[in-house]
């Protein structure tokens, strides 16, 4: 079986999804053939059932294990009086920098904590240290998103002791994190001015799941052909009623409203 696409040992032309690649078949013949896939099914040999068959209705979520852990996280957070926000955005949108300034701004006012995720390094955790909030790094190694189990393991040590606001900085990725509930109170989507205006309509699954959006790097607007009205319209199209913050963590523009909002969340 081809390890690239999972197709079977049948040497005839068969369908896949428009890509072409060559691979060895068991007889040792290398050849290339095109693939298009009109419908889904695996290309393994499906042997007819020799014995009796029974169909079992399951009606189960595939990610029920993740969802169950997310619910346990949610219950733990509620029990300990912690509001948790799941920050999602593309890599480089300014999540960590915003968190640095946010932790500084809330220091002494709101007890915060951070769980940050990346494939590798603890660079983000290092940047966030020394600002009065416990910080923990998750290195996902291969995974492109944080999951409930990873977060659940860290909750007691990072979000206990009177913490009121937990920031979960997800892996920079506009696609996968939206499918994995972490047990957060809600998601916050970040979008920087350098990314253009149409990311929300290009990645609707993610942007439609966030009731709050933060437009970052507003200080760069004079250097860009960025259309604020178009960006807001796109955000509202995929998530009607979305609450939008526009700020620059660097210059402080819009930060007061953001910090004020975060404080009010924990009252």
């Amino acid at each position, binding site marked *: 079986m081809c390890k690239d696409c*999972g197709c079977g040992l049948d040497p005839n032309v068969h369908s896949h999804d428009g890509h072409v690649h060559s691979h060895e078949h068991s007889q040792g013949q290398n050849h290339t053939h095109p693939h298009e896939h009109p419908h889904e099914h695996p290309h*393994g040999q499906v042997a007819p059932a020799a*014995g009796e068959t029974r169909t*079992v*209705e*399951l009606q189960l979520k595939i990610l*029920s294990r993740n969802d169950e852990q997310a619910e346990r996280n949610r219950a733990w957070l509620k029990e300990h009086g912690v509001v948790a926000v799941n920050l999602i955005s593309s890599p480089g949108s300014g999540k960590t920098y915003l968190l640095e300034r946010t932790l500084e701004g809330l220091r002494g006012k709101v007890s915060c904590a951070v769980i940050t995720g990346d494939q590798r390094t603890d660079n983000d955790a290092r940047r966030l240290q020394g600002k009065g909030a416990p910080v923990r790094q998750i290195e996902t190694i291969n995974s492109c998103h944080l999951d409930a189990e990873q977060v659940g393991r860290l909750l007691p040590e990072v979000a206990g002791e009177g913490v009121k606001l937990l920031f979960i900085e997800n892996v920079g990725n506009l696609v996968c994190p939206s499918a994995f509930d972490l047990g957060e109170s809600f998601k916050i989507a970040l979008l920087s001015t350098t990314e253009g205006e149409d990311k929300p309509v290009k990645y609707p*699954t993610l942007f439609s799941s966030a009731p709050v959006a933060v437009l970052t790097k507003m200080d760069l607007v004079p250097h860009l052909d960025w259309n604020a009205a178009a960006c807001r319209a796109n955000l509202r199209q995929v998530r009607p009623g979305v609450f939008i913050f526009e700020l620059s963590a660097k210059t402080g523009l819009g930060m007061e409203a953001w910090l004020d909002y975060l404080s009010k969340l924990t009252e």
Partner: protein
Amino acid sequence: MHELSIAQALVEQVEAAAAKEHALRVVRVVITVGALSGVEPEALSSLFPLVAEGTVAAGADLAIERVAARVKCRACGREAQTDAAFIGCAACGSKDVELSAGRELNIKSIELEIDGK
């Protein structure tokens, strides 16, 4: 690709269900994938056989039922299908809607081969 994590979770669930029924093997798995689930059905169907290899689900047919995004309109009360990228009421055009379908990622049923005797 996170479809790999999802394929692994799917195989684990199927294995658990098959074990409960003392099945010899899994013949067919039927899943529902919503338009807003964040999952690409073709990627999942390519990965499933790879992940299922060596398990009781090896060789099982994976059938995917796609579920369209649907909304219930708070303005006019009607319920209808909506475009995943342009979420709104198809009847009155209002954006004040509630998602009623489209985020599904479920195992609907499995067909098992049980002891032939």
